[in-house]
């Protein structure tokens, strides 16, 4: 019943992008976002597009997957485009039809915002499609570790994220089982009005919470039994290391940002 929920979107193939250090990919994504916002001229997006196309090509992700990541955005995209198009206040009047007025600034904004939205979503989904969730938290922990000096609990945050991610499939399975067990006793989760449905969730939620607490207790015990005492002095099985590929990837993003800045100067 609940099996169809997939966690994250990690698409497991072997590619140069998959092999990059997660820190590189996070920094690249940030750099890419900056570059997208630096673009002021429509032709500037061609540079961004070229960069994105190269990344997709190298990551061996099927184009279908990329398009699917935009799909949930359709409504938002249309909204953004339409709102900007009709409510752009300044600029030359292009079209007037009844009370609808389209001005060139509105059109300009509509195109810009929609393109940005698409680029942002596609760009960041490359990160989640090519990086396993646990690797991603490793990268976040490493990137955030300089903040430890000002008291930011980077290791604890990453550990919490990892555990949370680890338990989503477990709890999903558990919820599925409890749901079936209660259905076997005649519970009905799918019909009735809002109040009836909310009440029907109690036989599912109570056992699920009980089980989540039981699992949390067990896990804490198991971690303590193996002498877990936080991040202090802890070594890792997979040590993150920057390689030549990481440096060239970062250089590529650097170049992208340089080009977009240049584009602003030229105009």
């Amino acid at each position, binding site marked *: 019943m609940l*099996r169809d929920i997939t966690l994250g979107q990690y698409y497991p193939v072997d590619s140069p992008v998959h092999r990059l250090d997660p820190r590189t990919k996070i920094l690249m994504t940030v750099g890419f976002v900056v570059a997208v916002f630096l673009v002021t001229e429509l032709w500037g997006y061609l540079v961004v597009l070229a960069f994105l196309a190269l990344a997709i090509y190298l990551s061996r992700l099927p184009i279908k997957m990329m398009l699917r990541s935009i799909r949930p955005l359709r409504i938002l995209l249309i909204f953004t485009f339409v709102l900007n198009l009709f409510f752009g206040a300044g600029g030359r009047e292009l079209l007037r039809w009844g009370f609808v007025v389209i001005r060139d600034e509105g059109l300009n904004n509509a195109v810009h915002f929609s393109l940005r939205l698409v680029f942002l979503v596609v760009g960041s989904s490359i990160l989640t499609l090519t990086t396993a969730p646990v690797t991603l938290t490793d990268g976040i922990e490493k990137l955030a570790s300089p903040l430890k000096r000002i008291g930011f609990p980077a290791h604890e945050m990453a550990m919490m994220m990892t555990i949370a991610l680890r338990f989503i499939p477990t709890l999903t399975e558990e919820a599925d*089982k*409890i749901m079936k*067990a209660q259905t*076997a006793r*005649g519970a009905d989760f799918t*019909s009735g009005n809002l109040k009836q449905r909310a009440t029907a969730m109690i036989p599912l939620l109570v*056992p699920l919470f009980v089980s989540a607490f039981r699992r949390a207790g067990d896990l804490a015990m198991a971690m303590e039994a193996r002498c877990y005492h936080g991040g202090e002095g802890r070594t890792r099985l997979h040590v993150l290391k920057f390689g030549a590929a990481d440096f060239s990837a970062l250089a590529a993003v650097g170049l992208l940002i340089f080009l977009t800045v240049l584009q602003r100067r030229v105009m």
Partner: protein
Amino acid sequence: MPIVLENLGHTYQVGSPFQATAIQNISLTIADGELLALIGHTGSGKSTLAQHLNALLTPTTGRVLLDGQDINLSDASKKAARFHVGLVFQYPEHQLFEETVIKDIGFGPRNMGLSQDEIDARVQDAMDMVGLPYDEIGHKSPFELSGGQMRRVALAGVLAMRPRILVLDEPTAGLDPHARDFLLQDVKRLHSEGTTVVMVSHSMDDVARLATRVVVLERGELAMSGPPREIFSQVERLTAMGLDVPAVSQLAHGLRAEGLEIPNCYLMEEMVDALERLLKGGAPDVA
């Protein structure tokens, strides 16, 4: 009131990269009054099969007939099937949720839309059946009870619906020997009082003690079906499937391999008789 499985098959997540066929081509009739044990290796499809018996899973192929009626025809027929066929899941104590034992056991009957008097009567009855003292623990929270008691509360929760067919998925998993004996006695009594029982189990000794018929699944298909004596005599075949045989069958098999004249048996009493006869009757020389 037989259940008939016609060419039953189930595939999980059809059309996704995780597509997996759990069972296929299963045709089986579960007659009234049987105590059918369903055995098989982990992943052989036992639980999947069990969940088809009360329409929790809808077959990908084939049909499930109860009294000659397809139970998957409509939502109403599915719901009706669930009141006739009670399914007790693995670790059923994890499904308890109410404030008191009485309310929890009454959940099924409440969903059947029975009157409060009828519900009370059924709850009391069900608690009697599984040997839980109504006055003593009825008003306690189910979460205060021991593991064995919690499991009996969960069992009572299904029995209170008075199913004519009871399906138990690994009923003794994780219980201590005492609680396990107690639970198996409950099952035996229910069966002797006329309930048809289907029991999924890993424990061959439990199966040997109770079952009137054993069905063996292998990789989602029906591999063997017959009375326990017949099934448990095929020690090699079961072992090849990665299954245990009851301790007594194992012993009989071993002794026969050593040249002793021990008949096929799987019950402790039979083994004792056979050994006694052998010893009194002047056993052949054993080196």
